[in-house]
């Protein structure tokens, strides 16, 4: 074995593998320009005091921006919203995705057609999804309120039932989807649920189809119930497939700028509809708080990195278990 820390050994292997470096170099030059250089630049900015008024003559000021990030109460509100956003979305994505995959895994007539139609939301470009749903949530002409108005007799009954049971009152349609803070946030979540469940469904279907059939046959002979078969066979065997998908899902959802920004048209009403990434975007391109945003970006990245490292550890643990 060569010692990777010895300069001489490095050169020997570099000469042997010269061609390998040629192969990967072009890709890493582009990656370096667009991803790695901006990342390093961003780290430096986060320790500086750069802003619109100090665009050229900025200097390093240590951890001041980080202190600002953590002492700003708005940060915790937006962080909380981001977590709620991620958890609600992922819960729906996984429950709907796995549930529908379990159903589609049965011998149903027209299975292939249902499968294709259910994948459609994933195929639509994300910005079109967001802009289209924004239109559907329009107060007067949007399809959502129009349908809810049609269904209002039924809704009324559900409402009075819920009211007598839990004492909650939702109010009747038409709802102020885009002009109230909760409405806009809910609208963005519904949009994101729509576009995200097909991915989980396809991954789960792949996992289900890979489970050997004789396991179920053996369970049938042993007289296992449907419930037992699910928890003893299906669940442990699709878990290793779902964990990477869920992790990717968390990262994508946590960083999903398009939906929240385009549905709420830039965080409206009154900047109440933000998750961390859209909040950073606003801080950079509307308020020109460059150094502060850089620090906030690093904080977001570190949150995701911690999460990602945990995930890699976990999958390695599951890989060795099987």
């Amino acid at each position, binding site marked *: 074995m060569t010692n990777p820390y010895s300069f001489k050994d490095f050169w020997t292997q*570099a000469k042997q*593998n010269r*061609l*390998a*470096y040629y*192969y*990967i170099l072009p*890709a*890493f030059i*582009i*990656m370096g320009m*667009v*991803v*790695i*250089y901006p*990342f390093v630049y961003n780290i430096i*900015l986060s320790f500086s005091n750069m802003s619109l008024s100090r665009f050229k003559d900025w200097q390093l000021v240590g951890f001041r921006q980080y202190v600002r990030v953590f002492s700003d109460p708005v940060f915790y509100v937006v962080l909380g919203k981001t977590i709620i956003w991620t958890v609600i979305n992922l819960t729906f994505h996984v429950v709907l995705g796995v549930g*529908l995959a379990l*159903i589609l895994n*049965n011998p*149903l007539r027209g299975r292939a057609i249902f499968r*294709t*139609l*259910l*994948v*459609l*939301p*994933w*195929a*639509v*470009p994300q*910005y*079109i999804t967001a*802009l*289209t749903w*924004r*239109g*559907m949530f329009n107060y007067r*002409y949007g*399809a959502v309120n*129009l349908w809810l108005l049609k269904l209002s007799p039924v809704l009324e009954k559900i409402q009075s039932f819920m009211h007598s049971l839990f004492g909650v009152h939702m109010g009747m349609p038409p709802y102020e989807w885009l002009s109230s803070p909760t409405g806009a946030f809910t609208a963005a979540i519904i949009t994101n649920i729509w576009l995200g469940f097909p991915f989980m469904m396809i*991954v789960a279907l*792949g996992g289900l189809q890979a489970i050997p059939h004789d396991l179920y046959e053996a369970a*049938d002979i042993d007289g296992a119930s449907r419930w037992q078969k699910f928890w003893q066979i299906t669940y442990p065997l699709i878990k290793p497939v779902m964990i*990477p*998908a869920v*992790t*990717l899902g968390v990262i994508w959802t946590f960083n999903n*700028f*398009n939906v929240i920004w385009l549905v709420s048209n830039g965080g409206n009403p009154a900047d109440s509809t933000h998750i*961390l*990434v859209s909040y*950073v*975007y606003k801080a*950079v*391109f509307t308020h020109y708080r460059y150094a502060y945003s850089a620090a906030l*970006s690093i904080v*977001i*990245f570190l949150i995701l990195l911690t999460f990602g490292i945990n995930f890699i550890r976990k*999958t390695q643990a599951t890989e060795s278990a099987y």
Partner: protein
Amino acid sequence: MAKQVQLGKNPRWLTAVYYIIIIFFTLFAVYPILRVITISLRPGDMLHTTSLAIIPENWTLRNYIDLFTQQDFLLWMRNSALVSLFTTLLGVGLASTAGYGFSRYHFTGRKAGMITLLTTQMFPLTMLLLPLFVMLVKLHIYDTLIGLVIAYSATALPFTIWQMKGYYDTIPDSLEEAARIDGCNEFMAFYKIIFPLAAPALVITALFSFMTAWSEYLVAAVLISDQHLFTLPLGLKQFQSNFDTQWGLYAAGALVVSIPVMALFLALSRWLVSGLTLGSVKG
């Protein structure tokens, strides 16, 4: 055997419940798309209506005609097509070589390189935008389509490199050895033998790069300000301005833009997922 085991046989009521659930969610999945079709077919005097009919009264293709004749739609389409085409060419070139390097050579920095690629997936895009913007201004390619092509190639690369590497891993080394014996040098063995064999993975890489560039909004919004350089996402967003949303034009445009991508996507979805899960599990 005392009891006949019948596989995959569900009780009737359960099958009925399955159908109800699956039909409900299929409607949920398809309805917004139907709604866009409806709106795109509406005549100009019916844009503010509370009708829920799928085929509108007096339906017309006027919006589609206007889209191509009265608007800059063709210009946006040309810009998007150019950007997507060059992103694809660059993306395929870079991912096919880098993936090969990672697959075949055990050089120092190999693991670090692969992990770096994976880590970049956790970067919030908004973090890279300002430095990228500053850099492109310095290089004098801010507000050009070239700047956009470079940015998009890099966004697609981590996924496509992992994907290509995974595919090369399934091609046995013995093929290159045989080629070497027949007198090919190392590079020729790659270029003449392995590269053509990787065609399926190359197709996925190409289509993934194309779709990334065709459907991206945020980076374009930051890097492009000249109206003549608008790509489709920027153009369509413009139809939805705050005060006067041109719903008919927007809907027609959204359909024209989405249908090719949706067709490609449906054909590909299975392979995209296998690449994703493979790539991330091996990390």
